[in-house]
């Protein structure tokens, strides 16, 4: 029983990271109807920004309380990724807005490769250690159950971010414009919605959430490298599809489910008869199963194709 609880805690903190990345996929899909392949690499840039900024700030902020230091690093990383996301959209995707989706998809793959290999040039190919933002300590309430404080903080801060996102999308005018755009782009434009601003805003928020996910991921696993975004990015996409692409609650739930399932499969690999090496295949098997049996996902709406 304790072991199961332990796996659930590990799975949920990993799932929180997936959920944060998945939100970016789902939001961009909502307004532009395309999968931003480079999203996982924005996540990677977020981790490196956090690492460099954290190392630079550490001696300056020696007297600061730990939470202030950690949240400064988090906010700076989120802000720089938001800017990166907006710039990428302006330069690479905006010229292609009316083009076939395949063209945009290929461009997105190009952007993804560009970030990875430019990252390799700038940051070096070898994995780097991520500075610890919060001193790690173990919280053990029940016998045999170990949760680190970082895991708990990740879950709490993720919940706060999701709540903030909910407020932005449901209570602000920009959020309203975003929902209008995803419902019907033409009608939204006719009603005076400035689509360019809304799309930039969506990319900004999505990228900022990915950066937050990156800081959490790096704090949990402590090593970062220029290709670290590829697998989490793909898994988060699976999470977005699992929840129903275009649906914000779907992305959150999908991310958590995926994190828990992946951790359970690895944790109980002997019981299930699946070698732990199959860890990275779990997400894809889930993806294929959803697309076969419920392509609209858990919370998604089925869309009719019109001629």
């Amino acid at each position, binding site marked *: 029983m304790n072991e199961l609880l332990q796996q659930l805690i590990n799975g949920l903190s990993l799932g929180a990271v997936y959920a944060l990345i998945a939100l970016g996929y789902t939001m961009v899909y909502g307004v532009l109807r395309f999968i931003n392949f480079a999203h996982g690499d924005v996540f990677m840039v977020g981790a490196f920004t956090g690492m460099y900024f954290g190392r630079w700030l550490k001696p300056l902020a020696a007297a600061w309380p730990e939470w202030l230091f950690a949240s400064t690093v988090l906010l700076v990383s989120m802000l720089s990724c938001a800017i990166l996301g907006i710039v990428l959209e302006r330069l690479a995707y905006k010229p292609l807005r009316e083009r076939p989706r*395949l063209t945009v998809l290929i461009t997105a793959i*190009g*952007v993804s490769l560009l970030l990875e290999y430019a990252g390799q*040039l700038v940051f070096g190919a070898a994995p780097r250690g991520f500075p610890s933002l919060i001193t790690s300590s173990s919280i053990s309430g029940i016998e045999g159950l170990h949760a680190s404080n970082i895991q708990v903080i990740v879950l709490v801060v993720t919940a706060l971010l999701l709540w903030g996102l909910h407020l932005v999308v449901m209570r602000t005018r920009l959020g309203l414009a975003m929902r209008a755009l995803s419902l019907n782009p033409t009608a939204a434009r006719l009603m005076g919605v400035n689509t360019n601003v809304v799309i930039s805003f969506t990319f900004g928020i999505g990228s900022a959430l990915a950066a937050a996910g990156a800081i959490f991921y790096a704090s949990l696993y402590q090593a970062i490298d220029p290709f670290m975004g590829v697998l989490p990015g793909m898994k988060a996409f699976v999470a977005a599809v699992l929840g129903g692409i275009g649906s914000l609650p779907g992305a959150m739930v999908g991310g958590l489910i995926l994190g828990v399932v992946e951790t359970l499969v690895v944790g109980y690999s002997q019981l299930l008869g699946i070698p732990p090496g199959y860890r990275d295949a779990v997400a*894809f098997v889930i*993806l294929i199963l959803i*697309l076969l049996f419920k392509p609209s996902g858990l919370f998604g709406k089925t869309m009719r194709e019109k001629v």
Partner: protein
Amino acid sequence: MGARSLVLIAALAVGLVSFCFTGHPEAAWPLAQIDDYLLNILILAGINVILAVSLNIVNGHTGQFSLGHAGFMAVGAYGSAALTQLNGKACLASLSFLGSAAPLGLFVLSLLVGGLLAALAGLAVGLPSLRLKGDYLAIVTLGFGEIIRVMIQNTESLGGARGLAGIPNHTTLGWTWLVSLISIYCVGSLVNSTYGRGFLAVRDDEIAAEAMGINTTRYKVTAFVVGAFFAGLAGGLYAHFIGYVTPEGFSFLKSVDVVVMVILGGMGSTAGVTVAAIGLTFLNEALREAEQYRMVAFALLLIILMITRPQGLLGGLGGLARWLPGKGGKS
């Protein structure tokens, strides 16, 4: 004389000539000796041509977007290596009636087996995933490619993550270019046949094609299976050229390499894709010194190309067929 038979004759001629060029001094026809380094690049170029032309059936002619080509190549490579390296002695014994040609016969047989296994994998992947479109299909094929790689990595009898070494070096320039010319010819004739118009119809407008009574799923799966078969052949040739295969060598990035060739050459243009595959192979070698800048440049090229010339550098020229007699540029 139709363009097709001209292409066939040209193909046979090039095939024969390339059999003569061989780096191995003990080869049967040492008519011309060429530099080993150049020979290796030419063989790699031939393998890349097979990969690009076969991916072009799916991505170019049928308008689907597959990102898992390296997975099928892996199936072909491991499948053929399983015959020649893992079970080499037993297979050779059963082919002993061929006499001294037994190793060569086994090589050809293993290539075919690798190709057929890859085609089977293509069928298994294609049947469920081709109900999807565009971005979804791209991600699902990518996922399948990764699953194939993870499965090989976890199969100890295939060497696991360490890879499979000691595969006999049977691949020569002649074999490579013979297979690549066959694949160019097969893909070209398939797409230009009456049946093949269906692929183009699916690409141009899937809904309209379906309304005209074209079984779109069947065409898509056919394209997928044919593409996978040739990718499997390429994998077999590659395994018997390098002599050593690892699961890492068939990662997502290998698929991207092939996709870049297809896009650069122009999706749907067999001639363009062939030229792009050869060109990029040589370019890769030339840029070996600047390895870390190479992929940055490719990525930028991909983005700029999509913004300014989405049909590819060589696409939209109507293919080489325009300059061949018998077509008169009307095709």
